[in-house]
């Protein structure tokens, strides 16, 4: 009962936020892309040279695989923050003083995450037959096949993601942006271990993604080609030969296997019992404890002197005017402050590395280092609830926002300074211009996404995906300004930078009275 109440309250809190409706709208839009038109130049799911026929099994497989492989990444970022919200709103401290056990609390949070993600699955279950009818290759709908594929594959994956999200929130160092990055790599390695990106599929029962069983069923069909690579997002629907897919019979062990993964999701959440502090430690406490050990607290007697009334020295009028440089320095200090010593050492190491090895791939690779610093831009006022203080200072749009951006640019320039110096010395002007356009672009992206979303997550995940694709898609250097070898793409990146800055400005204008 307690679990249901915890999950219900948390779920209601989330569905009443505008972001829930946005998520559903995005899901509906993406659902249309999962089933490309018959004359499209891309295919969502291919087996070797074949694409799947658009009957209910084929469409069910497309939805199921997309949910399993792609939604498992985004779902984490969608549901993350449930425990953190209780920490920030201090509701957690109230819950911690009740009889609710930690296990109950964590399972309640997992259930809330899972319910939220199930809303997505429900929407996709509605969208799947609609898309089948819209594409109209096969008009007979087998709703049982659609439902079984979407829910037997998708729900256990969502359960695991829901559990991992809760677990991450209970581990102090994975609570924030570092957890966002860590999950991206966990997800990438999970897929790689499945062999999905390669050619082998692995063993079905040990497959948390749930794609091996239905896919083996397709392979077992008499009309299936000899074993060939399974690909997501490849080929061309218009040009590929069509493979008929027959209804999949789910065996009892296969269903039990999927239900086991579903239960494993709750188990992962319960693992959080070990690191979870049950809201005992407010944020920042660790630093203070160390400080307090070194410098004991002030005595009660000195505390009693509080607000000793005295006249303050009046501030001369000429001491108060626009000082843009001071604001940039202050913003830069805010960016760097709180970073651990090893982060600064790493930054120095990257500068030296740039002097020694100015390769484009390396330039892109090292941009992962300040991702958590960039991601604070544009949303810091909301995250730390300082908007009321910052937006009542003079010119919060024309002064503070550009200063925030320029502080980000300076940090990026420092990061890339070794590379830029080496490129200057070797007269590689095109490469230097490319790096400079990247130096301008990345902080603009952070600022824009931070301003419009009010969180760091949107930038963190967008950047990671971009970074990963840019590093791995060797045939497409234009994907990243620091990789590009064409002078024509640089103005495009500068235009994108300008557009992003415009987005950030409009986002800030929305929050500030003019």
């Amino acid at each position, binding site marked *: 009962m307690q679990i249901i109440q915890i999950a219900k309250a948390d779920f209601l809190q989330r569905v009443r936020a505008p972001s829930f409706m946005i998520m559903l709208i995005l899901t509906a839009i993406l659902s249309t892309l999962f089933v490309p038109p018959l004359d499209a130049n891309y295919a969502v799911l291919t087996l070797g040279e074949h694409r799947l026929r658009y009957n209910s099994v084929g469409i069910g497989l497309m939805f199921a695989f997309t949910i399993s492989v792609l939604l498992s990444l985004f779902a984490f970022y969608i549901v993350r923050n449930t425990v953190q919200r209780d920490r920030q709103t201090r509701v957690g401290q109230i819950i911690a003083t009740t009889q609710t056990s930690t296990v109950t609390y964590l399972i309640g949070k997992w259930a809330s995450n899972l319910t939220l993600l199930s809303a997505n699955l429900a929407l996709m279950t509605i969208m799947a037959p609609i898309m089948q009818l819209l594409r109209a290759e096969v008009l007979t709908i087998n709703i049982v096949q659609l439902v079984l594929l979407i829910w037997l594959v998708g729900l256990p994956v969502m359960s695991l993601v829901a559990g991992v999200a809760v677990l991450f929130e209970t581990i102090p160092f994975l609570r924030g942006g570092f957890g966002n990055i860590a999950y991206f790599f966990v997800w990438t390695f999970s897929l790689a271990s499945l062999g999905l990106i390669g050619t082998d599929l692995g063993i079905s029962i040990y497959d948390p993604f749930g794609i091996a069983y239905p896919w083996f069923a397709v392979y077992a069909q008499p009309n299936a080609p000899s074993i060939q690579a399974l690909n997501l997002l490849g080929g061309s629907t218009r040009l590929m030969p069509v493979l008929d897919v027959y209804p999949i019979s789910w065996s009892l062990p296969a269903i039990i296997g999927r239900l086991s993964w579903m239960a494993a999701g709750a188990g992962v959440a319960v693992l959080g019992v070990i690191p979870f502090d049950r809201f005992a430690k407010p944020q920042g406490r660790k*630093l*203070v404890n160390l400080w307090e050990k070194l410098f004991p607290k002030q005595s009660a007697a000195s*505390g*009693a002197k509080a607000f000793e009334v005295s006249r303050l020295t009046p501030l001369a009028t000429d*001491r108060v005017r626009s*000082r843009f440089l*001071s604001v940039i320095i202050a913003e830069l200090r805010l960016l760097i*402050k709180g970073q651990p010593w090893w982060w600064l050492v790493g930054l120095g190491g990257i500068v030296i590395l740039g002097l020694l090895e100015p390769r484009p791939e390396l330039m892109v690779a090292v941009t992962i280092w300040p991702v958590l610093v960039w991601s604070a831009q544009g949303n810091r006022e909301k995250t730390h609830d300082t908007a009321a*203080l910052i937006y009542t200072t003079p010119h919060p749009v024309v002064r503070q926002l550009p200063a925030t951006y320029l502080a980000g640019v300076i940090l990026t320039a420092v990061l890339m300074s070794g590379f830029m110096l080496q490129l200057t010395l070797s007269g590689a002007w095109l490469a230097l211009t490319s790096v400079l356009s990247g130096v301008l672009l990345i902080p603009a992206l952070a600022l824009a996404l931070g301003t419009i979303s009010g969180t760091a997550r949107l930038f963190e995940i967008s950047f990671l995906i971009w970074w990963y694709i840019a590093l791995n898609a060797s045939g497409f250097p234009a994907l990243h300004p620091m990789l590009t070898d064409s002078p024509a793409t640089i103005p495009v990146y500068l235009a994108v930078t300008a557009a992003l800055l415009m987005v950030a400005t409009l986002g800030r204008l929305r929050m500030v009275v003019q």
Partner: protein
Amino acid sequence: MELNIEAIGKQYKRGTWSLRDFTLTLEPGVVGLLGPNGAGKSTLMNIVATLLKPSEGRVLWNGSDDPNALRRDLGYLPQHFGVYPNLSAIEFLQYMAALKGISAKAAKTRIAELLHLVNLEDAARRPIGGYSGGMRQRVGIAQALLNDPKLLIVDEPTVGLDPAERVRFRNLIADLATDRIIILSTHIVSDVEATAHTIALINKGHLLSYNTPDALLATMQGRVWDLTVTRDDLPYFKEQYLVSHMNQRPEGIQLRIVHDEAPASHAQITHPTLEDAFLGYTA
């Protein structure tokens, strides 16, 4: 120096007005903004502090409706505010000083004075993330005073302060009030009683009264009664009258009632307090 609040109103999306036709002209001194929860105080503060745009009307600071002109002279202590937990009090105040356009040299002196004033000198180099609620509130007070504001808006400023700090804060406000406008919003009547030169009573988005404390009390003369009743009679009086105070006495329960006529034949007229006036106007 003058702040004109001209017929402002704020309508929210669902059509409800949290503030309506609110007009007030303020001159140097402390104006206490009193009202029950949901009266519209925070909306009014947010509009005057340039955080919220009114649906109608305007706010003029020395004749100008430019928000940045007001922001230059504004010190604002919101009821709820956050800080950057990794920064120390000094660093946070340096950051705010930069945003307020104060030169580094002037800021250095000012920050030192303010940290002394709010008694945070000993903790000034510690990360704010580990401060107690009262210490954070004092950082908030310091940042509000950074730019030597001509208009100081403080929303529930004594929340989180211990009794001694509260008394000292009241004294600070009184001391600062000679050459600036201070708007003090609170539901703690004693805070207003101790510091305010004028009191604006607000309820359901409307200004009910704007007076000096003496004038406000004068309007309550003859409307506050003192009487002692038995425990059995208590429910009747609580239901029929506005009881502003109760005291247990050996002879029964002593009640303080706000009412136009005597609630009982043995009731005695007594001197009104601001709390009586607050209840009399807003209940």
